[in-house]
Structure formats: structure tokens, C-alpha cells
């Protein structure tokens, strides 16, 4: 039923929505929960394990029961809390975890069987017959889970936003707003975040007659403060934004819902934003959460938290019942009685576990003529889909009074919302008087204020907020107190009495729910304890208490209380479980932000890329680079295309875009010495204008990179690295220089992308360079293999190196990136007469394998030394030291039977082995001893047969030996060969 006076709704705007197929109406400003409740819909879902009917118990993010599947198809979201969904026109929601319907749920049989499903029952059953677990599991899994995962792509987008501020305030209740006002007057950059759509916190549930601030009712006060804050330029307020993580150094994360009231609006619009906040100071004003009481059948729809009932009443004008009973162990729930009284609704009874109830609010209630049962408890309730009766009795007496009721408001006390405080590694302490964990020692620059700091009465909240916030923000100028002083009347508050277990004796026979969503009862906790699970962490994991989607916001402290009561341990000795991020669940899409699909990862392309695309190249991923893999012509298969590219290169002329190779410019007095230290071979004598191949090791002796380095001047070299290792080599070299050898005068500059690199290969490559640089002499005498010259085309300087990765004559031209495409076109143009053929990485691999050249990362895997690669020649024996040298002399690295690089030829030349195939000497039963594996394998069109490279145990000494490659269907005979298959004498190369 809806009352006509509510401050948060726009009652002129009616909103239609559908729940479980039925149409209802609410108002603008409603949550799904308030709208459903106003339509008298209490039954919202079924519990996880026993499928008991469950209704909404709270009005905020702590809600364990009222969770629904929101929307359909691509818009669907499982497990949304009805208490947090802002109502919008056309909203569709349905209940979860029930079949066929929430009213008639077959799974409810579990409730009857509940005695057989105590905590930990899975561990004790379903073990026989062993093979059957799969089948059992199938059914167990079907029963588990709550809502349904979406099945379609997400139509919305998400983004991230970085924000730096002086003061971050979390929570916009009385204390948060007041703190914001104080911070604003100090001219600080302030960010205030509030998870709910409206600011105000507990103000939303306040009534206008009581608890005034400076004579104003709380809502008026809020609007006054908000008006001031909105005018201040230095304050930013964001609502529908949950602060969900408090990490190192005041780094906090918040998730903002941009369309809380738009729902499935606009595909492709941004739905949520993650704020990544770095704040100098953080003020936590996160309030507190009311606790349920643990009594038999405390989970029926219509049993709700008292303060939440007030919020529905005062905030949303929803009257939740006619026959109302309140069950409490503290004063705060009496306020709910008074709130109802202001609406002329009577309370049937207040049941209070305390005997002496003399404080202000209860007295007020008593004076209103409301019946108070002191020293009493509710021992049971009835009502299947909604509460019907409560059983009231005096503690320690047996007479039960049965009262009809349709709403039971309960309050077991309050738990300060210390989640963020402990996430930041603040230490808590337990306060016995009202059984709550309160902040004790902050670990970071933060301050807790208001009820999250364990201050529950308005007067003291105002007082302490004023002084502590001023002090906290005034580290430098201690005296200046800013902000207006606000006050409220003094109220005498009675002591709370802990009642963790109502009716302790009957635990075994009762259903006293602690964790409503995971269906954990007091009995389950007792079982866990008696089975030896004594640590709170064990109890949590054995019973799953606190592990549901609400993460125990209403259940964790109660569980501790129960353990304490059952074992006699102090709660402060038990400790809490760890508060982890996120405070409330966070959408994956939001965490991924914009960085999905085309933005998932950077795609690096060369200056010539557009040409490759236009010419139908397929691409290979090499690190983040896209390199042309091969260029199929019409109807060509990959093999055909690669063979064509390979043959054309050997026969005439191939052209490769080699721009992705890393290039590092080295300058300074000691470059030669530096190269001596980082490469295995010697560099001092390299002549200017010459190139040399080098292998770089880690200090563990294993190959990490290779490449050609060219000496451009006395103190000037340029090094190339493999595409994938460019960044890591650069940073390792920088590391050596800065930290190990600061005495060396060497400067490194990355020039990887300064140049586009075009590699012309094949016997006719000389023709091309001759026509590109008509005045130059490219004969082997004047420009031999492994040498370098600088020329110009159209005044554009080109660095030309005669080096080769194919075994053919090859000129690599490095030209400024912006000219690379044009030069490539020019080469293609000139090359027409020589059947110039662009080739990709696959042909490149074949060509180099024909020559037995290695690829780091393919022939090597971090466990291969240059000696293993049969490259003894490159390891200087003369140098006293170089990176990796010492490790080459370890007892294992000097072994002769290590795996060594060899060529492999299949006996049947038409078979191309699969890369990654294993080699054996003889076939045995499994496990079959393996002697090595194929690292590279191709069909060589030049040889008209297959070739392969492999790492084989003692391979260097076993040339000619026969091995077997056992594949899934057949065994392939192979022979160990020399790894250089083409032109072993290098005649073509040096021609």
C-alpha cells in the first residue's frame, strides 16, 4: 500500500514494469523493491539450497534475498538486488532459482530433506561408485547457481576514468555531507561518492518530526547542504556510484552507473564507468548495516530489518503491513514503531529481549500505548509465502503467545560498514557494549566518521564529524575550524543486549537462518564447530556463511556471535574473515572498460602495412605486430603461395618488409667494450662500415636474442634485435649500463620506428639496388657481404646493409619511416622485370631453415646455449668474461649429451613433419624415451623435399643416425642431417 507523502518519489509519474510476467506500477524514484512491496509482492525468490520462499529484508546493498534476473536477452543480468534497481518504464525482471515458478517450486522438496543436507554433506557422500561422481555432479551443479548467465554479447559499453583529488568522501549520509561541507570551505578538491541514486543515507529513512538538526528536519537540512555544495566549484558529487575497492596509497575504485534509470536504453551507450581515484585523504562515511536476529524460521517473506521498513515507509511511502510486530535487542527499532505511529499505523507489539527498557525512545513508544514484551523473544513464526503468526514467549519460560502479524520488523543491532576501512588495512577492534567491530588504527591517510565509526546517535555524529574532520584536514594549520556547527537534541540511548541465538537449546531442531542467501543456519555452524572447524575461516568455508553475493553483510557478525556463544570464546579473539574487494559485485564489462574487441590489444603495423593489406596478405601475430604471413594469389593454398614466394626469392628476387626488427642506436666512447660484454663474440676489431652477427645470452648462459650489429663510426653502432624482444633487450641493456657498468660511456637510443626496412633478397636483388642508387658500385668487391653504406635517393638518406637471412644476396635498405611505403612501391616497380615477389614470414622461415639459420624462440626455448646450437664459433674463448660465459661452464651446460641443433630429413621426402613432433630412437611401450623434438619443419620447394630442424640429444655427433617420429597414426622414419640444406659453401650468399 502506498501512502501519499513521500519525499523521494515523483508521484506524478507512474511507471509500468513486469515482474514474473505480471504487470505492475510504481513511481519515478522507486526501486524495484519499493515498487514491488507497494504492490504487496513480498515473495521474490527461492533460497539457494532449500528453496524456501524468500522476500526482501532490507532496502540497500546488503540485501541477501531479493535478487532477480533483470531484463531479457542481451540485456539480461543475473542476481541483481531489487533494492538497488532504480525503476524505469518497461523494466522486466523475474525471480530466480525456482522451477516452474516462484510460488510452486519443485526444489522446495529440499526444505523437507533439509535434515539430510547439513553443512559439509557433500564431502561425506556421493563417493561411491567412484565413476559416478560425474553424474552426481551434473545434478548438483544444476541445482546450484542462482540466475542465468547472459548468452549474448553485451550491447553496452563501459569506460574508465582517472581522478585525482585532495579529499574523497565516501557516503552521503549526515556525516558525509557534513564532512563535504567542511572540506569545501577549506578550498580542497573534493569528491563525494554515494552508491544510492539519492544522497542522504539514513536521512532517507528519517521522519520529519524527529531528530532535527539545528531545528530543521533532516531532509530540509540535506537540501540546504546540497545547495551549498553544488555551488562550490571545488566539490563534485556523484551518485549511483559505489566505492568498491580501497587499495594501496589511497588508490580507490568506484563504479558509477550512468543509466540507473534508463535500463535497456540505447545500445552502444556507456552503461558504467569505473573511477580510478587517487586521493590525498579519504573520509569514510559509509554508515552501518542493521543485523537480523537469529530465531527459528526467521526467513519468511514479511520479516524485515526494522530500519529498512522505516526507509520504505518514510522514503517511499510504502506501508508494508497492518499487523506489525517488532522484535529487537536495542533501541533503534523503536524508531520504526514511532515512524508507523506518525502515519497512524499501529504496532501490535514490540518484543524486546531486554528486561530493563528505560531509555528515551522505548519510553516514548510505551507512552504511545504500544505493547512491549520485555525480556521476551520470538520463538517461531508461521506462514509459508508470507509471515502469518509469531510465537512470543518470555526467555526461560514456556508459555507461548501466538500473535497474528503480516510484518515482522527485526533489529539485532548495527554493524558499522568497515569494509573499505579494512580493505585499506586498517585495524578493527571489537566493542562489547553493542557488539560491533569499529575502526581502530587506520593504515592509510583516512578517517572514519559517523556510524561507520561506531557513533550511532545523531548528536554525537554531528559533534565528532565537526571536530575530527577539521582536525584531519588541517594537518598544517591546526587552529582553523571551518564549517558551520550543527547540533541535534540529546537522546538517552539504552544498552543493547546481545542475543546471538534466540532459543539456544533447540538448535538441532530449528531453522534459524544466519546467511539467508546461502541457507546457512545456526545448526550448520554448530555442526562445523563440533566437527573441528573452529577457526572462523574454517567455519566460513565449511558452511559457506558469508560467501554469497552479499558477502555476509548481514550475516558475518551474527555468525561470530553464534560461535562465541557456542564455544565461549570472545568475538575479539575469533576475529573477522577478510574483507576483500569488491564491496558489492562489479560488472566484468566495466572492469574491461573500453579495452575489448578492437581495443583489446594494441595492433602495431609498419609504414608499409597498407600495401600488404591491399595486396591480400594474411598476417601473423608477432608480439603485438602484424606481419605479412604470405600473400596468396587467387585460389592459391598456403603451401602453394609459400612455395611460390620461396622459389621466386631463390630464383630471382623476393622483397620482405623487415621494419619490425628492433633497432638500437649505440654511441659513445665505450660501445665496443659494451658489445664485448653483452655479446658472446668479439667486437673491438669490427671495422667501420662492417656488420657482424651476435648472440646475446642471459647470465644463465641461455640464448635470449640475436641480430646483426653494424659499426657506423668510431663510436657509433646500430644493433638489430628480434621483433619480439626489441623492448626487453633495450631495457636489459639500459639496466646493465645504469646499474652494473656506469663507468661505460655508452648512450642507447631506440630507433626501431625511425626507419622502415625493406629487405631485397635473391640473385637479382643487386639489379634493384643498382637502379635505386645508379651511381653506386654493388659488386661484391666494393660492397661485400656483411658491410654497410649510406646512400641517398631523392636526397633521402638510406642506410643499406648487405646482410642476409635467406642465404641469398640481400640488401636491407633502411629509410625514414615516412618514405618506406614509397620506396617499397618503387622497388616493386623496378622489380617487375625480375618477377619481384613479396614474401611473408612463412617464406622467410622456409628460406632461413634451408640455410640452417635459427630463430630465437623457435629453435631456442630458454634452455638452449649457443653451443647447443652448434655455434661454438661465435663464443669467444679469448674474452675473460661476457654475459652468460660463466654459466656455460657449469657441470650441466658442459655435458656432451645435451640436446643439440641438427637437421632432420624424413626418409620419405614427401612427408612434412609437424613442428613440435617428438623424436625417439626406438618405439617402446609408453612412456617412450624421447631424444628431442622438431623445432622447424617445412617443405622446401628448392630441394623438392621436406626439411626440418631439431634439437636432439648428442645430435651433433650423430649425423646420419636414424630416428623415429611417432605420430598419432603412424611412425615416420627420419635421419639426422646437417642443418644447412642449401648452399653449404655460401657461394650464393657471397656471389
Amino acid at each position, binding site marked *: 500500500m502506498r501512502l501519499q507523502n513521500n519525499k523521494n518519489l515523483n508521484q506524478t509519474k507512474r511507471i509500468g514494469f513486469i515482474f514474473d510476467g505480471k504487470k505492475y506500477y510504481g513511481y519515478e524514484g522507486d526501486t524495484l523493491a519499493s515498487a514491488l512491496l507497494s504492490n504487496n509482492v513480498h515473495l521474490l525468490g527461492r533460497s539457494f539450497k532449500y528453496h524456501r520462499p524468500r522476500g526482501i529484508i532490507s532496502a540497500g546493498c546488503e540485501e541477501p534475498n531479493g535478487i532477480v534476473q533483470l531484463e531479457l536477452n542481451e540485456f539480461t543480468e543475473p542476481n541483481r538486488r531489487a533494492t538497488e534497481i532504480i525503476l524505469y518504464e518497461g523494466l522486466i525482471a523475474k525471480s530466480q532459482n525456482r522451477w516452474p515458478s516462484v510460488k510452486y517450486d519443485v526444489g522446495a522438496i529440499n526444505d523437507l530433506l533439509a535434515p539430510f543436507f547439513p553443512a559439509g554433506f557433500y564431502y561425506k557422500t556421493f563417493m561411491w561408485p567412484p565413476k559416478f561422481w560425474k553424474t552426481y555432479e551434473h545434478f548438483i551443479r544444476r541445482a546450484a547457481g542462482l540466475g542465468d548467465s547472459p548468452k549474448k554479447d553485451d550491447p553496452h*559499453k563501459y*569506460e*574508465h*576514468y*582517472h*581522478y*585525482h583529488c585532495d579529499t574523497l568522501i565516501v557516503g552521503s549520509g549526515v556525516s558525509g555531507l557534513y564532512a563535504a561541507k567542511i572540506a569545501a570551505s577549506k578550498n580542497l578538491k573534493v569528491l563525494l561518492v554515494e552508491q544510492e541514486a539519492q544522497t542522504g543515507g539514513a536521512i532517507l529513512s528519517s521522519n520529519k518530526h524527529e531528530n532535527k538538526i539545528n531545528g530543521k528536519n533532516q531532509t530540509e537540512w540535506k537540501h540546504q547542504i546540497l545547495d551549498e555544495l553544488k555551488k562550490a566549484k571545488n566539490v563534485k558529487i556523484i551518485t549511483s556510484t559505489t566505492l568498491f575497492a580501497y587499495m594501496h596509497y589511497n588508490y580507490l575504485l568506484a563504479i*558509477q552507473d*550512468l543509466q540507473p534509470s534508463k535500463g535497456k536504453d540505447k545500445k552502444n*551507450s*556507456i552503461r558504467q*564507468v569505473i573511477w*580510478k581515484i*587517487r586521493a590525498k585523504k579519504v573520509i569514510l562515511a559509509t554508515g552501518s548495516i542493521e543485523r537480523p536476529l537469529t530465531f527459528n524460521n526467521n526467513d519468511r517473506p514479511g520479516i524485515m530489518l526494522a530500519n529498512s521498513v522505516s526507509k520504505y515507509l518514510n522514503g517511499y511511502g510504502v506501508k508494508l503491513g497492518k499487523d506489525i510486530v517488532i522484535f529487537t535487542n536495542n533501541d533503534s527499532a523503536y524508531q520504526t514503531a514511532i515512524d508507523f505511529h506518525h502515519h497512524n499505523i499501529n504496532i501490535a507489539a514490540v518484543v524486546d529481549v531486554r528486561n530493563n527498557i528505560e531509555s528515551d525512545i522505548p519510553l516514548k513508544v510505551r507512552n504511545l500505548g504500544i505493547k512491549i514484551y520485555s525480556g521476551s523473544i520470538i520463538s517461531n513464526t508461521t506462514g509459508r509465502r508470507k509471515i502469518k503468526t509469531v510465537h512470543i514467549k518470555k526467555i526461560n519460560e514456556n508459555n507461548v503467545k501466538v500473535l497474528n502479524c503480516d510484518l515482522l520488523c527485526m533489529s539485532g543491532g548495527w554493524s558499522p560498514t568497515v569494509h573499505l576501512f579494512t580493505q585499506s588495512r586498517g585495524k578493527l577492534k571489537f566493542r562489547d557494549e553493542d557488539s560491533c567491530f569499529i575502526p581502530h588504527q587506520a593504515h592509510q591517510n583516512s578517517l572514519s566518521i559517523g556510524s561507520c565509526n561506531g557513533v550511532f546517535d545523531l548528536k554525537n555524529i554531528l559533534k565528532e564529524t565537526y571536530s575530527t574532520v577539521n582536525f584531519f584536514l588541517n594537518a598544517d594549520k591546526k587552529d582553523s575550524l571551518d564549517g558551520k556547527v550543527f547540533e541535534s537534541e540529546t537522546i538517552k540511548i539504552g544498552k543493547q543486549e546481545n542475543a546471538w541465538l534466540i532459543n539456544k537449546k533447540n538448535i538441532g531442531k530449528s531453522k534459524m537462518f544466519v546467511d539467508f542467501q546461502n541457507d546457512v543456519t545456526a545448526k550448520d555452524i554448530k555442526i562445523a564447530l563440533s566437527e573441528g572447524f573452529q577457526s572462523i575461516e574454517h567455519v566460513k568455508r565449511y558452511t559457506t556463511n558469508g560467501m554469497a553475493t552479499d558477502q555476509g553483510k548481514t550475516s558475518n557478525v551474527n555468525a561470530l556471535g553464534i560461535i562465541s556463544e557456542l564455544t565461549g570464546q570472545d568475538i575479539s579473539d575469533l576475529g573477522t574473515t577478510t574483507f576483500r574487494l569488491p564491496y558489492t559485485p562489479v560488472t566484468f564489462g566495466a572492469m574491461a572498460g*573500453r*579495452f575489448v574487441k*578492437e*581495443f583489446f590489444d*594494441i*595492433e*602495431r*603495423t*609498419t*609504414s608499409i602495412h*597498407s600495401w600488404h593489406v591491399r595486396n591480400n596478405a594474411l598476417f601473423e601475430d608477432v608480439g603485438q*605486430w602484424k606481419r605479412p604471413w604470405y600473400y596468396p594469389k587467387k585460389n592459391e593454398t598456403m603451401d602453394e603461395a609459400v612455395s611460390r614466394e620461396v622459389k621466386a626469392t631463390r630464383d630471382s628476387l623476393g622483397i620482405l618488409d623487415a621494419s619490425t626488427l628492433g633497432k638500437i*642506436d649505440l*654511441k*659513445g*666512447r665505450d660501445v665496443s667494450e659494451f658489445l664485448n660484454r653483452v655479446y658472446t663474440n668479439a667486437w673491438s676489431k669490427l671495422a667501420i662500415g662492417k656488420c657482424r652477427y651476435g648472440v646475446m645470452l642471459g647470465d644463465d648462459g641461455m640464448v635470449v636474442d640475436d641480430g646483426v650489429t653494424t659499426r657506423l*663510426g*668510431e*663510436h*657509433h653502432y646500430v644493433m638489430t634485435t628480434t621483433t619480439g624482444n626489441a623492448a626487453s633487450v633495450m631495457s636489459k641493456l639500459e639496466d646493465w649500463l645504469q646499474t652494473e657498468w656506469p663507468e661505460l*660511456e655508452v*648512450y642507447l*637510443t*631506440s*630507433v*626501431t*620506428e*625511425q*626507419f622502415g626496412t625493406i629487405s631485397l633478397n635473391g640473385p637479382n636483388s643487386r639489379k634493384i639496388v643498382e637502379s635505386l642508387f645508379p651511381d653506386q658500385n654493388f659488386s661484391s668487391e666494393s660492397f661485400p657481404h656483411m658491410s654497410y653504406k649510406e646512400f641517398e*635517393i*631523392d636526397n*633521402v638518406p638510406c642506410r643499406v646493409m648487405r646482410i642476409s637471412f635467406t642465404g641469398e644476396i640481400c640488401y636491407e635498405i633502411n629509410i*625514414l*619511416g*615516412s*618514405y618506406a*611505403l*614509397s*620506396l617499397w*612501391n*618503387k622497388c616493386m*616497380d623496378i622489380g617487375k622485370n625480375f618477377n619481384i615477389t613479396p614474401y611473408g614470414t612463412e617464406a622467410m622461415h622456409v628460406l632461413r631453415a634451408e640455410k640452417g639459420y635459427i630463430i630465437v624462440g623457435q629453435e631456442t626455448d630458454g634452455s638452449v646455449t649457443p653451443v647447443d646450437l652448434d655455434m661454438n664459433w661465435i663464443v669467444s674463448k679469448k674474452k675473460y668474461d661476457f654475459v652468460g660465459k660463466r654459466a656455460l661452464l657449469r657441470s650441466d651446460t658442459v655435458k656432451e649429451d645435451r640436446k643439440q641443433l641438427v637437421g632432420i630429413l624424413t626418409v620419405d621426402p614427401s612427408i612434412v613433419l609437424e613442428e613440435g613432433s617428438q623424436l625417439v630412437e626406438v618405439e617402446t611401450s609408453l612412456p617412450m624415451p624421447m631424444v628431442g623434438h622438431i623445432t622447424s619443419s617445412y617443405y622446401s620447394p628448392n630441394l623438392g623435399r621436406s626439411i626440418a630442424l631439431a634439437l636432439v640429444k648428442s645430435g651433433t655427433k650423430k649425423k646420419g643416425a636414424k630416428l623415429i617420429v611417432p605420430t598419432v597414426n603412424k611412425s615416420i622414419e627420419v635421419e639426422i642431417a646437417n642443418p644447412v640444406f642449401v648452399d653449404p659453401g655460401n657461394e650464393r650468399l657471397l656471389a
Partner: protein
Amino acid sequence: MSLIRNTVLEDIKIEKNGISIEELPFIGKINLRGNTQDRDFLSNAESVLDILIPTDPNTKIQNKELQVIWLSPNEWLLRFLNNDNFIRIFEELNNKLNPEKTSITDTSENKTIIRIEGKHTTELLRKFMVLDIDNALKDNLRVAQTIFIKIPVLIIRNHLDQNKQSFDIHVNRSHATYLRDLLLDGCNQFIN
């Protein structure tokens, strides 16, 4: 057929929702290394460049011809405002500075420059940059090397006023397209 020059981005300038994103191609840049303890180095370099070399981290000094941008304690970027004297200066530096103790490298094309301008530019950048822009780039003297998502960038502020915010982002050629596309996507909606 003579050589032509291509920009990195095919659409060199795009405007969207009040933000303009433009590549500034072919700008002369020199990476200069040397030790500030070395008097010769500083005085020679400064005399060639006719400008002081900034030794305060993350600052720049500028004259009509070039910006000298601090990159690290022994590294500066010379960013030419026009290329007229690029070759002359490059050669003079090479002639004047001691090759054993310095390094002068043409890096004109290693990175390109993306200039973004408009009223909400800073807001747009906050979607991608962890840098505390308001602090690290609080005035036009300041520069910062940082990351844009995972891309290394050098960012320089050249605001005319708050309504005409303007930044130059120096970025590797191969990262430029991704960076630009992200910026464009980010323009779709402002959250402030």
C-alpha cells in the same frame, strides 16, 4: 618515380564532439644525450641551439625554432617548430660535441606527434591516462613521459586557455593509430 612521404594516420585531422585530433607529421626531432656535469657539453650544445638546456625534470624550454624537452637526467628531445634549420643544427651538434661523451640521434620519425585540442581535452585524456594531469602538467612549461593505456608517450601541454586546451602527444608510429582510435571512441561521451 620520385619518393613521396606518407603520414602515419591516413586521416590526418579529425574533429569530433568539439575535440580535434591531428597528426603533426614530418617534424624534425633530435635525441640528445650528454652529461650535465660536463661543462663542454652544455655550453657547446647551448651555443649551437641558442637556448638553455633544461635540467629540471619534466620541463621544457622553447624558442622560436625549437623546444628542448627534458627526457631524463642525460637526455633531451629537440623538437623543431619548423624544419628549416634541422640539418644545419644536426650537423653542427655533431661537429661541436664530443662523440665519445655524447650522442646525437635523428629520431624525427621514430615517433609522430598527435595534437589534441578542444574544451574537454583533459577530461578525454583522463579516460586513458593514469597521470595526474592537473599536477604534472600544471603549466605550459611542464612535460611528462607516461603511459596512455599501455603505450609509452611523451605529453606536452600547450594550452592557449582553458577553453582551448591543447596537448601534443609524442607516440611511436606503430602505436599512433590505436591511440587515435581510442581517443575518437572516447569522444563519444563525456562523463563530465
